[in-house]
């Protein structure tokens, strides 16, 4: 801890309001900050630089970037873990704690890990705990407790956050000078523009690197005024773009909620990340980026230290030294890695004027910590004698602040998520971005354009014009302008050093601060055989931390290239994937929605006490009554249908309306069955095959008029069938209209020997006897005054009438059916009874008794598929299968009462081999046989043969193969 530092006077302190103090506590101690402070800046002003302990070695860590770009500032705020202390605004009463400590930030018991560091190289988990088997299960919880980040609250509040969708011609990510120039250019040419910035104020580098501005606060205010008064621009500040997705869909986290922005063109003005330098103890509190020092001064009015050393590879460090000196920090020395003569001469002159010592060709050998504070007290500076090598002896300089300007890395992540590639130029030691996806553009520092210095002062000249030019290219591609503006030369002075890495015998030269990885960890990963940077990442975890390689990817690329004796361009960096910044799951998650479909009769079923069951997305009555009487209720419903009359809601059945001159032609090609001979007013059972000749659906085709068919389909298969039919006809171009009317119609099946009498009451004008309205006839006629389509089909094997009516009249029909049926003892029956009734009839349920490879001949449907008649979908394959012979067969079986319990899915055995499975089974009569359908490999199996079944618990049972139908073998009951 250092002494408390006084606040500087304006114009320093762009974000703070000196007149309003804010009370908060950190690690149980009370502090005071100013309105506008971030938690980290308020703590820094109070002399608290350490914010947390590091991931592995439990080293004290303080803010590195002051811009939310590092994991050092992750703290727990009001119980919420992993909050960036340098981004969260201070609020009254805020209570924060350091993370990853045992016993507190100052006296973390696990700081001993720092001394054991040599025993914990990268990937040590993989190597230390894989033997003996099971040892990892013991150690994992221990290691997880010691490492890791914040602690999740056990009772996290249930949070819902809304999602918003925005659209724009042009989205500009980053509101620095380049982004603002691009956004204004686009908006002024008529484009709708969304400008996004993660900071509270626009201006980018102008908010902190602004010595050239007379009044930075006024300049920023002017920029904001200009942007807000531009009608075409929507400005989103305090909003982080976390991902780029195909065709310019951007995810933006703003005010705790997710915005999905669809852009026609995407301009990235994401800038660049100033890099740290790699040397021993480069992670001590007090060692910060040069830009972080500038932010402390300019944004928060904080003097960053009393005595500072600046280490740099470019002119940014020189400017930082001048800014520090002006803020009252005594700059001891500027250590420049470059050779003499490469620094901007005007800046160097200013340093000289300010009395600041400047050492070229020098670097930091190590930073040293105070034994009690653990924070920076001195640095050891030395001459560079070769790349990465320092002189044997140096000079100790006492300081409480070390500012690093280690070069830049373009903020490439969003571009690379879009498929762009990074190229490395050995001459400039810089990465650049190429191969941008269509419609994506770069402006500013991410494009390598940084603005020139004129007489030592930064100027936007070149930068803003270049951004405007790039924006004009985007506008041209949108057709908003005819010609792009003239390109300007936007060359920028080099900012990187070829080797800003100084390995030390004592280690602790951190490449990746998030993951506590040192030079030796990267080198060691390569030595173990991981030559590819992607593998180095996975083995060492470099770049996997919350800062996602913002500072680690450049030194890692350099180290891997050198260790494998390749060019940096060949090694590259690891793949960038969303999200670029941490996203809370509650922000991404939608409300828990499990959509279900209800038929128009749903409430009627509930009123009648139905126990509901899912059928695809639908809810259907399984049976009527309480689940504890399940079997008895189902058997009772079966008996009622066999002896009296029952009604079942079959609204979930699929329905297709086929209209037009070529209707017959279409259906004759889609369905396996011959349909040309189907007369108007008649219906036929049909099966649909796929091209492989396998059964995919069945239903009943009703010819309601010469060129009009109504075809039912299975509940869960209709959508797929509809798609198949329309796809075929997209090729065949028949003059026919196919409509999926499944939801438009409700349907009730009235079945049982007494059903005709119920129908007579419902349709007094309709002739219903077997000659006028025979089996498999269909007619359009009113039922209880409701226009209906009535089909005489026999799915349950009794006399029955399917009544299809518009869904809006469903409940009305149901009530009429029960009113008309009251005298005949009508009962509702559910899906379970229906399944048993049709099982007795041996009718196959497509999807239950068939699988994805069921040939019609295997399930007794060979009569329906006749390839001899010419083309139909699947016909060619049916012919081939038939020539080869089938390999299995669906047979009926009976199991005597007391012979054991069998369930759908149980296995059919032959010796020790599995040769099939039970697809349907049940006992229709109380105390009667269990009947079922099962596949067997014995295609010659005959009634009376034995079928060996194995139940789930391993019990072997013997059933007898039976002829189907089990009931009313001649099919007389449905045809009466």
């Amino acid at each position, binding site marked *: 801890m250092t002494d408390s530092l006084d606040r500087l006077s304006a114009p320093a302190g762009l974000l703070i309001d000196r007149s309003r103090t804010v009370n908060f506590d950190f690690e149980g101690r009370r502090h005071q900050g100013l309105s506008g402070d971030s938690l980290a800046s308020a703590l820094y002003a109070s002399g608290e630089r350490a914010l947390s302990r590091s991931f592995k070695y439990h080293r004290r860590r303080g803010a590195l970037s002051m811009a939310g770009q590092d994991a050092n500032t992750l703290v727990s705020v009001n119980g919420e873990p992993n909050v960036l202390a340098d981004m969260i605004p201070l609020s009254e009463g805020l209570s924060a704690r350091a993370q990853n400590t045992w016993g507190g930030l100052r006296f973390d018991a696990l700081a001993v890990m720092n001394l054991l560091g040599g025993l914990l190289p990268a990937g040590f988990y993989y190597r230390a705990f894989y033997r003996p088997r099971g040892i990892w299960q013991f150690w994992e919880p221990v290691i997880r407790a010691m490492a890791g980040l914040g602690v999740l609250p056990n009772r996290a509040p249930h949070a819902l956050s809304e999602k918003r969708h925005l659209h724009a011609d042009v989205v500009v990510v980053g509101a620095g000078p380049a982004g603002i120039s691009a956004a204004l250019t686009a908006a002024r040419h008529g484009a709708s523009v969304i400008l996004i910035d993660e900071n509270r104020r626009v201006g980018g580098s102008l908010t902190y690197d602004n010595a050239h501005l007379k009044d930075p606060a006024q300049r920023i205010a002017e920029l904001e005024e200009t942007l807000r008064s531009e009608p075409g621009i929507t400005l989103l500040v305090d909003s982080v773009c976390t991902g780029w997705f*195909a065709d310019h869909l951007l995810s933006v986290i703003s005010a705790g909620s997710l915005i999905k922005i669809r852009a026609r063109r995407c301009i990235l003005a994401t800038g660049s990340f100033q890099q740290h330098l790699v040397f021993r103890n480069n992670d001590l509190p007090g060692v910060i980026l040069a830009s972080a020092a500038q932010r402390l001064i300019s944004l928060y009015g904080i003097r960053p230290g009393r005595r500072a050393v600046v280490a740099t590879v470019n002119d940014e460090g020189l400017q930082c030294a001048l800014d520090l000196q002006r803020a009252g920090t005594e700059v001891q020395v500027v250590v420049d890695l470059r050779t003499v003569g490469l620094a901007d001469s005007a800046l160097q002159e200013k340093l000289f004027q300010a009395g600041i010592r400047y050492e070229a060709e020098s670097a930091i050998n190590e930073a040293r910590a105070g034994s009690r504070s653990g924070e920076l007290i001195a640095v050891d500076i030395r001459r560079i004698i070769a790349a990465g090598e320092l002189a044997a002896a140096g000079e100790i300089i006492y300081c409480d602040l070390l500012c690093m300007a280690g070069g830049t890395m373009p903020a490439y992540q969003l571009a690379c998520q879009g498929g762009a590639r990074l190229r490395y130029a050995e001459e400039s030691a810089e990465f650049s971005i190429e191969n941008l996806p269509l419609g994506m553009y770069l402006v500013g520092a991410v494009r390598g354009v940084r603005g020139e210095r004129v007489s030592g002062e930064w100027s936007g000249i070149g930068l803003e014009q270049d951004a405007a030019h790039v924006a004009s290219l985007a506008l041209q591609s949108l057709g908003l302008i005819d010609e792009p503006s003239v390109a300007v030369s936007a060359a920028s002075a080099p900012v990187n050093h070829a080797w800003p890495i100084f390995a030390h015998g004592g280690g602790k030269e951190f490449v990746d601060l998030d993951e506590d990885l040192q030079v030796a960890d990267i080198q060691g990963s390569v030595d173990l055989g991981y030559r590819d940077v992607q593998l180095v990442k996975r083995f060492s975890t470099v770049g996997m931390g919350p800062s996602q390689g913002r500072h680690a990817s450049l030194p890692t690329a350099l180290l891997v290239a050198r260790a494998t004796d390749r060019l940096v361009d060949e090694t590259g960096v690891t793949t960038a994937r969303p999200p670029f910044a941490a996203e809370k799951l509650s922000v991404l998650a939608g409300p828990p929605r499990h959509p279900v479909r209800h038929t128009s009769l749903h409430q009627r079923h509930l009123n009648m006490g139905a126990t509901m069951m899912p059928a695809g997305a639908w809810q259907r009555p399984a049976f009527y009554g309480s689940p504890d009487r399940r079997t008895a209720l189902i058997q009772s419903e079966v008996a009622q249908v066999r002896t009296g009359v029952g009604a079942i809601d079959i609204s979930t059945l699929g329905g297709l309306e086929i209209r037009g001159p070529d209707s017959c032609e279409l259906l004759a090609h889609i369905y396996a069955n011959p349909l040309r001979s189907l007369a108007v007013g008649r219906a036929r059972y049909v099966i649909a095959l796929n091209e492989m000749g396998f059964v995919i659906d069945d239903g009943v085709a009703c010819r309601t008029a010469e060129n009009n068919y109504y075809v039912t389909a299975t509940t869960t298969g209709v959508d797929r069938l509809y798609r198949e039919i329309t*796809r075929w006809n997209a090729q065949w171009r028949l003059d026919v209209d196919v409509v999926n009317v499944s939801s438009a119609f409700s349907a009730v099946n009235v079945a049982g020997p007494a059903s005709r009498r119920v129908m007579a009451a419902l349709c007094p004008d309709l002739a219903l006897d077997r000659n006028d309205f025979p089996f498999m006839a269909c007619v359009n006629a009113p039922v209880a005054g409701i226009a209906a389509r009535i089909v005489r089909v026999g799915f349950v094997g009794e006399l029955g009438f399917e009544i299809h009516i518009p869904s809006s009249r469903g409940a009305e029909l149901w009530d009429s059916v029960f009113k008309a049926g009251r005298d005949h003892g009508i009962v509702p029956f559910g899906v379970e009874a229906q399944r048993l009734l049709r099982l007795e009839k041996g009718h196959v349920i497509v999807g239950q008794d068939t699988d994805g490879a069921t040939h019609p001949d295997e399930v007794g449907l060979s009569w329906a598929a006749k390839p001899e008649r010419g083309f139909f979908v699947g016909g060619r394959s049916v012919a081939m299968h038939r020539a080869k012979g089938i390999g299995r067969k669906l047979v009926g079986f009976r199991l005597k009462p007391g012979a054991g319990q069998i369930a759908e899915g149980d296995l059919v055995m032959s010796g020790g081999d599995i040769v099939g499975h039970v697809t349907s089974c049940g006992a229709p009569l109380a105390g009667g046989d269990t009947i079922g359908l099962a596949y067997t490999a014995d295609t010659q199996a005959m009634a009376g043969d034995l079928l060996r079944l194995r139940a789930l618990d391993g019990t072997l049972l013997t059933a007898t193969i039976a002829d189907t139908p089990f009931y009313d073998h001649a099919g007389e009951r449905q045809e009466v």
Partner: protein
Amino acid sequence: MKQILCPMNGLRDIDEFVYGGVVRDMPDTAHCSDEDWSEYLFLMDNTAGLVREWWLHSPSGYWFIAERDTVSDVISATFDPSLFFTWAAAEHTQANSDD
């Protein structure tokens, strides 16, 4: 999320569309060999480059054809299927009767 220019509905998000496979010529089922038919069913070219694909705009039930580069995933054009198909062309291979 990717977008597709539906010839009927305009530019829509890809979650409104269903992929329908590569557009391929069906062999003449009446005359082709079993080998030809099996190849048609099971052996896909898996072309790296420009292919024609079936896409369905699901909410409107509209099938169309897209030309897509399977390497870059760029859809260069979309067409109504009538540009490629006519019943007259299909008829001679696809005739049938009830017998």
